[in-house]
């Protein structure tokens, strides 16, 4: 019990630090790829603290409830990962977090936020089924949704679930809101639909959004690391490799339309997922 409590506290403190550093690394790498020098690695923390010191401007009281909901669901799903609980519930909690984000944008009157929220819903439509298939794939392989069960296996999940691994890499781009799928809000193109879903957040509340993004990034990379848990450092290396791959794709790809995003993620992600799970059931016998 005490062990779990310590894990929770460490995860709550360390995850945003890692997430923030990764985002700083992202900005540096992106700048270098564009032939620029780029900001310091700890730039996201400067941005964060600056935003904390700014004036509160309330556009709608309701959006604050949703932003805290977004933070809470994201943190709880991260805790599900570090406490090695149920991966299916983790996927659902992540879905709730996404819905909170959308409702936060819908609770304001800004047409730009509404535009972003509609697109964010399409993003959820694109990635949520793939994450669900990942949970089902883990069940088909291990006979359990528990993440602790994944850690007990000697053979890494990557060997049997590699089609799902590709599918998860695909939706990582959507979830990190990177090109070609940065359609609801973009890290680089600040002028398009103003800022989409986060248009109406300012000052400390925008800082909260950034905090959630850091938690989210760590959570996603953690899910990718689950593909190789024995030893775990290989999984972490794979996750970092995936992160750098995303940065590369972000810088070489132009944005696609929302329709193409759903079409591609369903045709690649769902097909790979279904084939993967069907193959597992055929070879292992129906459970």
């Amino acid at each position: 019990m005490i062990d779990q409590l310590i894990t929770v506290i460490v995860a709550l403190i360390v995850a945003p630090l890692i997430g923030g550093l990764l985002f700083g690394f992202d900005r540096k790498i992106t700048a270098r790829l564009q032939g620029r020098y780029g900001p310091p690695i700890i730039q996201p923390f400067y941005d964060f603290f600056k935003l904390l010191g700014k004036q509160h401007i309330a556009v709608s009281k309701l959006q604050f409830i949703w932003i805290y909901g977004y933070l809470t669901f994201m943190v709880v799903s991260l805790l599900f990962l570090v406490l090695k609980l149920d991966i299916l519930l983790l996927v659902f909690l992540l879905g709730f977090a996404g819905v909170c984000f959308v409702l936060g944008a819908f609770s304001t009157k800004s047409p730009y936020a509404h535009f972003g929220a509609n697109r964010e819903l399409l993003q959820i439509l694109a990635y949520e089924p793939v994450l669900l298939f990942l949970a089902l794939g883990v069940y088909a392989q291990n006979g359990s949704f528990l993440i602790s069960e994944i850690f007990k296996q000697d053979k890494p999940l990557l060997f049997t679930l590699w089609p799902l691994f590709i599918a998860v890499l695909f939706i990582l781009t959507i979830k990190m809101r990177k090109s070609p799928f940065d359609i609801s809000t973009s890290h680089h193109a600040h002028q398009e639909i103003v800022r989409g879903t986060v248009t109406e957040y300012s000052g400390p509340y925008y800082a909260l959004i950034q905090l959630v993004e850091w938690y989210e990034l760590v959570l996603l990379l953690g899910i990718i690391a689950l593909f190789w848990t024995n030893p775990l450092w290989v999984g972490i290396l794979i996750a970092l490799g995936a992160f750098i791959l995303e940065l590369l794709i972000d810088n070489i790809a132009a944005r696609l339309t929302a329709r193409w995003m759903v079409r591609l993620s369903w045709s690649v992600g769902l097909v790979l997922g279904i084939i993967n799970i069907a193959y597992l059931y055929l070879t292992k016998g129906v459970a």
Partner: protein
Amino acid sequence: MGLIEKSRIKSPWILHFDNSSCNGCDIEILACLTPLYDVERFGMVNMGNPKHADVLLITGPVNRRTARVLKNLYAQVPDPKIVIAVGTCASSGGVFHNCYNVLGGVDKVIPVDVYIPGCAARPEAIIDGVVLALQKLASLRGDKK
């Protein structure tokens, strides 16, 4: 100097607004973002959203139509904020100062903290002006009205 004050200097997010400029100064502002000058190394990011901005970079003389927009944008930027008038026209109205539709410089409508002269203002001058503004920003408090 506290953590927040230090961060304020390290991360000025810029909102660029063109009143009725000839676009000369606007091109120079965008030149600051290119690899040659790369202001992002100082944490400056060109924001499209006034609600996320700290520094208002304004070019061109204010005319009767843009005055309303400018006031609106100024009100939407959360405190603490800094206003920089870029170029001669934004500072004083420049060659347009007597036009029937021109009110004059930006300071006729909203308070200006830093004036950057030049026609067009050079990227070096713009970066210099923003750095000057940051020293002022550091001394401002979050609850300034």
